[in-house]
């Protein structure tokens, strides 16, 4: 804004006092913590304290003369499969080496310190990344380009100075000093950025709408949607845990563009770690004058309030989310009017997803063209995908849009676990669908994936292998949407229940061919008869399953067979006496005592007692338990 006020360029309050010779960065994302990274961090601190050669410092607080090490907890480093991940930088004699250890346990820490940190020799067998040398994990990293997650996994998300040191809040400074709101909107429009929450609506256009609507009392709202409800998606969770300030900065830039003075972050209560780091970050940003009144000394004021979601998937839908902030049941309402015209408390409101906002500062800093030069046709820039399920290298990967599914799943993800056969990739969660092997060479962009019947959605990719049943997977999603339907529209409320009943019937081996047609018809009704996207897209998992895997459905209803052995009613276990060694392993795990037999003699399975849990099948090492 062109006023006489002096706008103060944000800088770290406590610049680093010491560049540590040994720099240890440990993944403290939800995945890392689940794998035990807090214990690893503690072990590093304790073990380093024991070596009198090295002093552990906080580079911003302690000065250090001799050898010094810093130990930092970061957000998600990406390769969750190998968590806890520990990245170690050594800066000695003018050179800098960087390696990453995977699946680190506290017991490994003393050896890492002795051989690598003190001795200078990395322990290769534990390395995931080894400088420029190729490892089997390089493909996971090499194809990635991190714009959204540019600082995630590198900096300490609980230290605002870390973000500032990395250039944080400079984009907001640029906006406040050099750009008009219209220029900001134009920049985002030209970048081609589209909503990363699922719908893929052009972000700049959305801002333009919200900027254009008048407000009776000068109040407009800017909301960050962090109600990441798709089961199987965790990119927003990781972005918030790994670098909450990037999201605040994106919100402030957007608020400046549309003229909003109040912002809300709506974040799932199921993400305690993200909530904690948002609270820490917000407080720090407010103290530094980066969020709040007269940001950086300018005329622009923008306050952010945190709202914890209370556990309702439907609140990811923008009108339901606003209802929830207003303290109501989170039920979607008819659009128009769109939130841009009449949103939260009937004021013009803009809502963007976490990932969308996290990349905004990057676009402002690097320019719309830099973002638009990446990506594919109408899907520009990069997108974060959450790889999970039966894939070797589970984790978060940010890649340019337009990469093929095969490149993501087999290149970055390293293919299917345990040498199993690929069956499908589930994209877009409960609003998406399962795509078969034959479609893996399609590029990942909004338009192409929509044509398949699935959606890019928020970017969850769950790999399903031959041991998973496609009917069961469809049933899983319907049970999800049925539970999460808000109940407003009968086609969704009752229709999803009836669809679930039909799918359960098929899984239980009681389905008929007619049921498949009925299921399809019902899905069509739910699709057209529902107000919001939850109901409108709830049938997608069924549509795609029937479209690409109809044979598996027919097997269930005609042959009464589940080839994956998941639908227990359609499975029989038996023991092959020729292979059975009489080791009694299956006898021990059988919960109902259905298996009997003497040691070293072939065992017998009593079908009357068998509950088909499959425990014996999993346990047997001699291929003697048969599933049919």
């Amino acid at each position, binding site marked *: 804004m062109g006023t006489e006020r002096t706008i103060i360029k944000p800088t770290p309050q406590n610049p680093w006092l010491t560049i540590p010779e040994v720099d240890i960065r440990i993944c403290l994302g939800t995945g890392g913590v689940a794998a035990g990274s807090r214990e690893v961090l503690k072990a590093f601190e304790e073990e380093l304290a024991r070596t009198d050669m090295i002093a552990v410092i906080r580079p911003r607080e302690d000065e250090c003369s001799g050898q010094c090490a810093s130990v930092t907890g970061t957000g998600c480093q990406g390769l969750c499969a190998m968590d806890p991940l520990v990245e170690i930088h050594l800066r000695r004699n003018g050179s800098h080496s960087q390696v990453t250890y995977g699946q680190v346990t506290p017991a490994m820490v003393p050896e890492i310190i002795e051989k690598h940190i003190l001795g200078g020799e990395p322990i290769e067998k534990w390395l995931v990344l080894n400088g420029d040398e190729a490892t089997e994990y390089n493909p996971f990293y090499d194809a990635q380009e991190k714009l959204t997650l540019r600082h995630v996994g590198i900096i300490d998300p609980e230290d605002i100075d870390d973000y500032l040191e990395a250039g944080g809040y400079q984009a907001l400074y640029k906006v406040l000093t050099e750009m008009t709101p219209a220029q900001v909107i134009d920049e985002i429009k030209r970048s081609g950025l589209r909503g990363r929450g699922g719908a893929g609506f052009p972000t700049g256009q959305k801002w333009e709408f919200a900027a254009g609507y008048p407000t009776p009392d000068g109040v407009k709202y800017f909301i960050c949607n962090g109600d990441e409800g798709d089961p199987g998606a*965790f990119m927003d969770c990781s972005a918030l845990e790994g670098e909450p300030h990037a999201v605040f900065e994106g919100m402030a830039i957007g608020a400046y563009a549309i003229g909003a003075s109040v912002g809300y972050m709506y974040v799932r209560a199921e993400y305690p770690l993200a909530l904690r780091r948002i609270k820490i970050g917000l407080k720090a940003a407010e103290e530094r004058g980066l969020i709040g009144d007269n940001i950086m000394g300018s005329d622009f004021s923008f306050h952010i309030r945190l709202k914890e979601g209370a556990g309702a998937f439907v609140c990811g839908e923008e009108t339901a989310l606003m209802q*929830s902030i207003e*303290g109501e049941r989170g039920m979607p309402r008819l659009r128009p009017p769109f939130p841009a015209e009449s949103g939260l408390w009937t004021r013009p409101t803009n809502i963007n997803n976490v990932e969308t906002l996290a990349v905004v500062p990057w676009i402002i800093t690097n320019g719309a063209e830099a973002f638009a030069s990446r990506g594919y046709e109408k899907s520009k820039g990069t997108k974060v995908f959450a790889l999970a399920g039966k894939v070797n290298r589970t984790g978060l990967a940010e890649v340019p849009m337009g990469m093929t599914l095969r490149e993501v799943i087999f290149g970055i993800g390293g293919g299917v676990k345990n040498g199993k056969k690929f069956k499908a990739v589930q994209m877009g969660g409960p609003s998406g669908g399962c795509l078969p092997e034959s479609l893996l060479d399609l590029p990942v962009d909004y338009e192409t994936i929509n044509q398949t019947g699935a959606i890019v959605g928020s970017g969850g990719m769950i790999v399903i292998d031959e041991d998973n049943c496609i009917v069961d997977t469809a049933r899983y999603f319907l049970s999800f949407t049925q539970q999460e339907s808000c109940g407003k529209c009968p086609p969704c409320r009752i229709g999803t229940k009836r669809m679930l009943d039909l799918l359960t019937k098929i899984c239980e081996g009681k389905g008929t061919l007619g049921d498949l047609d009925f299921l399809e018809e019902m899905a069509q009704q739910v699709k057209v008869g529902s107000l919001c996207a939850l109901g409108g897209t709830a049938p997608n998992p069924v549509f795609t399953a029937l479209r690409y895997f109809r044979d598996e459905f027919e097997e269930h209803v005609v042959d009464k067979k589940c080839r994956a052995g998941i639908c227990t009613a359609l499975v029989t276990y038996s023991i092959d006496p020729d292979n059975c060694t009489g080791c009694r392993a299956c006898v021990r795990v059988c919960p109902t005592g259905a298996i009997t037999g003497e040691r070293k003699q072939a065992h017998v399975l009593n079908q009357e007692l068998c509950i088909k849990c499959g425990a014996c099948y999993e346990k047997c090492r001699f291929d003697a338990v048969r599933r049919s």
Partner: protein
Amino acid sequence: MTTISTVDHTDEQGLEEQFQELLEHYRGERGALVPLLQGAQAIFGYLPEDVMKRVAHGAGEPLSKALGVATFYAQFRLRPHAKHTIRCCHGTACHVSGAARISEELVKYLGIEAGENTPDMLYTIEEVHCVGACGMAPVVMINDRAHGKLTPEKAVEVVRAFRAEVEGEGDGVPEAADEAGTEG
């Protein structure tokens, strides 16, 4: 879910003071119903009838509406809740990686159904949709801590270790649970 385990629910006067503070904090604020319910639940562990009435009053809403909201969201509980919450994640990644078997084993180990409390009010087990640790599937969360890459056996092991930690060595851990599912 915020800090249930750290609040001393036996100190009635302390709880009342906290509740008063909460009501005061949100006095006159629009849209305060949900955070009031969340705050009250964090204090009392659940939402007893008299608390519901006072929350409704504090938010300036009829009790019927407060109840409508409380029953709409999965987070709110109208019945007492055990001290520690064990959440079995049933997100997609966990589902395809065998979450159902893990739930089964834990239910068997604790001797309660999902959604129930153990009789000593120490543990409850919930089946939830996605805790955001999909890369580590299948996952079980004990209070705010996630445990990943589980098998049914490992899940029981993790819960048993947690019990040993909070209850002291082996206290109250049923013998039979050691070999979950061995008797006929």
